[in-house]
């Protein structure tokens, strides 16, 4: 059941009243049933995998929790007879035991993800090697990829790690953990929530709050506007550009970079708006996943504003643990001793950053292009970090210029273009093709034919006007939202609020690229 289908809207229309009409203690049960019903639309066989993740995580979390309480009980019972050293040794032993249990859960669940998502990629790589040595090829199995597997696996594994770190409490009710894993609005494309943020909200009773409900509906509508009016309209041109990349070189590559930047932003943030809006209408508050990423002045800042929950997941559960793990400490010591303090201290940080970005790329998809995409992001961040002293000198030398509004805008545009360039790896899905087409931007000078050429991509002048108008509205709302309380202020002026929402609804219905003749596609992040 796609977010953009009539069935999904019907599903929400039934769910909202049901949710608020049932006794409050049953609300989370309704959500669980709704979530599994939503998931069942993706295929009954997919349910098996989400159940496996839920049950294994439940078992592992309870096991870790049981060991932790056993440790506490043991220490409490033997407080008198154990000295500090013995207590420390006992704790360390127990921690190691819990870590092994955690590892079991992580290996099992990431194993499922790896097998289902990366077998094809690994085997095609292996086949290339076999080809080179003339040993033929292996048949690549067509494995099922359950909807949202990357998102729910990461969310649930985050919960396991938090249980291990005692940052969240163990969920003793498997049905409740099932709801946390399968909460339907965020199944498709996140945000990746933390157990400590979401769980209580899911299980606690919610009374109908008119204002929050209206805000939720407004946010859903706004999400549909971005997705259907802007993203799916651009998709038409993107499909033409990508159908024959070698035909569309030079200036077209620049156009593709610009169009795809807008498309993925409207698509992903639109989907997240729908997700957060649904949760808000149900009385819950999910973490924001975007914070005006295109206003970022640097790549690092961009990644703090784009897909925030994924970034923070990798930071908390990959980068930090990797940076402070024993082998990394040893490497740090060694590199400082052999490469000097300045360079030596960078080695473990750079290694951890590279590994994190490699995994981020791999998370996005099973393909060399995603890995290269991740590593290029890493490279840009590390180079920027290395050049920081230079920037600092520049800022000291030209304080007025570097603090001016124009310079800020320049940096934002620069970051936007750089990120767009790297992001095009995601479009072409082939590293060689992407690099070749990047080169064509310098070698093929076909800007003159662009005005006519752009009208041969499946979009007419009216479509570009709609896209441009949509972008202007999106940018205006983004700027106004930055000043707090846009919807609050609108709530005080119901007539204006209705005019704007009515206009938005009409725009979605009339200008949305949906229905026969259009391919109101899945959200781009569905596939990740």
């Amino acid at each position, binding site marked *: 059941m796609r977010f953009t289908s009539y069935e999904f809207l019907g599903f929400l229309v039934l769910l909202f009243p049901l949710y608020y009409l049932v006794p409050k203690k049953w609300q989370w049960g309704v959500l669980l049933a709704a979530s599994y019903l939503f998931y069942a639309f993706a295929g009954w066989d997919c349910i098996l995998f989400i159940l496996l993740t839920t049950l294994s995580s439940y078992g592992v979390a309870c096991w870790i929790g049981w060991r932790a309480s056993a440790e506490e009980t043991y220490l409490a019972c033997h407080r008198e007879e154990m000295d500090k050293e013995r207590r420390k040794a006992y704790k360390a032993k127990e921690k190691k035991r819990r870590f092994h249990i955690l590892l079991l859960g992580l290996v099992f669940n990431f194993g499922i993800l790896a097998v289902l998502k990366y077998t094809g990629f690994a085997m095609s790589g292996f086949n290339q090697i076999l080809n080179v040595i003339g040993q033929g090829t292996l048949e690549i199995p067509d494995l099922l990829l359950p909807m949202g597997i990357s998102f729910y696996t990461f969310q649930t594994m985050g919960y396991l790690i938090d249980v291990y770190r005692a940052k969240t409490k163990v969920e003793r009710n498997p049905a409740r953990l099932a709801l946390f894993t399968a909460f339907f609005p965020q199944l498709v494309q996140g945000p990746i929530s933390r157990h400590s943020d979401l769980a209580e909200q899911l299980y606690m009773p919610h009374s109908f709050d008119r204002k929050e409900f209206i805000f939720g509906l407004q946010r859903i509508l706004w999400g549909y506007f971005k997705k259907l009016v802007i993203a799916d309209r651009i998709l038409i041109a993107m499909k033409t550009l990508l159908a024959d990349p070698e035909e569309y070189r030079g200036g077209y590559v620049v156009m593709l970079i610009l169009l795809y930047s807008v498309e993925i932003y409207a698509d992903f943030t639109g989907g997240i708006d729908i997700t957060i809006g649904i949760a808000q209408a149900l009385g819950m508050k999910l973490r924001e996943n975007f914070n005006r990423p295109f206003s970022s002045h640097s790549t690092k800042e961009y990644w703090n504003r784009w897909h925030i929950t994924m970034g923070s997941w990798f930071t908390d559960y990959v980068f930090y643990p990797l940076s402070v793990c024993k082998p990394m400490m040893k490497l740090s010591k060694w590199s400082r001793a052999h490469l000097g303090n300045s360079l030596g201290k960078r080695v473990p940080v750079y290694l951890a950053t590279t590994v994190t970005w490699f995994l981020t790329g791999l998370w996005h998809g099973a393909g060399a292009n995603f890995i290269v995409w991740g590593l290029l992001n890493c490279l840009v961040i590390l180079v920027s970090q290395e050049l920081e002293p230079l920037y600092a000198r520049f800022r000291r030398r030209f304080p007025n210029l570097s603090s001016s509004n124009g310079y800020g805008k320049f940096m934002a545009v620069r970051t936007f273009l750089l990120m767009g360039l790297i992001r095009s790896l995601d479009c072409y899905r082939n590293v060689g093709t992407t690099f070749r087409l990047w080169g064509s931007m310098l070698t093929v000078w076909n800007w003159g034919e662009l005005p006519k050429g752009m009208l041969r991509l499946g979009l007419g002048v009216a*479509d570009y006007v709609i896209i441009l108008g949509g972008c202007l509205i999106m940018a205006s709302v983004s700027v106004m939202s930055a000043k707090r309380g846009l919807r609050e202020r609108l709530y005080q002026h*119901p007539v204006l609020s209705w005019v704007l929402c009515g206009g938005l609804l009409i725009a979605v219905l009339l200008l949305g690229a949906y229905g026969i003749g259009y391919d109101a596609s899945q959200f781009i992040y569905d596939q990740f």
Partner: protein
Amino acid sequence: MNLKKRILIAVCAILVITLILSFLQLLVVPKYRSNPEGAMIGEYYDQAGGHDVIFVGDCEVYESIVPATLWEEYGISSYVRGSAQQLVWQSYYLLEETFRYEKPRAVVFNVLALKYGTPQSEAFNRMTLDGMKWSTSKWKAIQASMTEEEHFLDYVFPLLRFHSRITQLTAEDFQYAFDAPAVSQSGYLMQTNIVPMTEAEEEGRTLSDYTLPESAMNYLEQMRLLCEKNGAELILMKAPTNSWAYWWYEEWEEQICTYAEEKNLSYYNFIPLCEEIGIDWNTDTYDAGVHLNVYGAEKLSRYFGALLQSAHHIPDRRSEAETSARWQERMDAYRKQKIQLEKE
């Protein structure tokens, strides 16, 4: 602001939004002026009632039967509820709906549509179904006709289907948004052009299976029962044509003959009767043998009218003042359109 005031504003806003959307819907739905085949089904309701014969079927009906000729020559009051590629279940549900408006003595069904057993094309579905007034018949017709890409809600709110036309609106869309003149003459779509058939097509392309689809035959049977229930005689016909696209095979003919014999129905295949009817494929077709033009259709209607009156006892109503007056208007319109089209 108090709750009452908020509710009042919300109700007003919803009303205004609904009005705007309704207007936009009227604007974006196709008006079928340059391609009038989609406008005919909806024209029936202005003339519903008082017909002794109702014709249902695809283009072979609305291009071959001229109710004006049937009236002029025999005083037969008839109407053609045909539409482009009208599938047999669409004919059935149109007929079911027609029986709610009137009780004809005879229903004539053109059998070519029996070759289709599954939904075919969204565009043709729209031409048949959009014109129908909402009823259980329309509901069932939509359910039976939808292709995989279609959605029922798109029929309920055509704006959802045709919204993309907003960027392609023409003056025609504004002109005919609220009211549009009829394009047909009692369901007959007049064509005055002459495009002779240059080469006779001897035989159709070979099919892997010549069995008419079971689902189509089931609907034919349902149509028979429906007519029986409503006291109407079901008559089967096959319009004359001579093209690949509309080829009529011997095997199909046999199946229809067997069915007609079993159910004691009259069946007229006009293909072998072309010479007797007087159809000249050099002058009586507007598209090289695919369909008849008005001259061929008038000839066929004259021939068929005689059969309807002699073999099926369809009465001559010319002596009835009220019916006659109504038909006089239609005859005037028919003649006017013929002259106008001939001039063009």
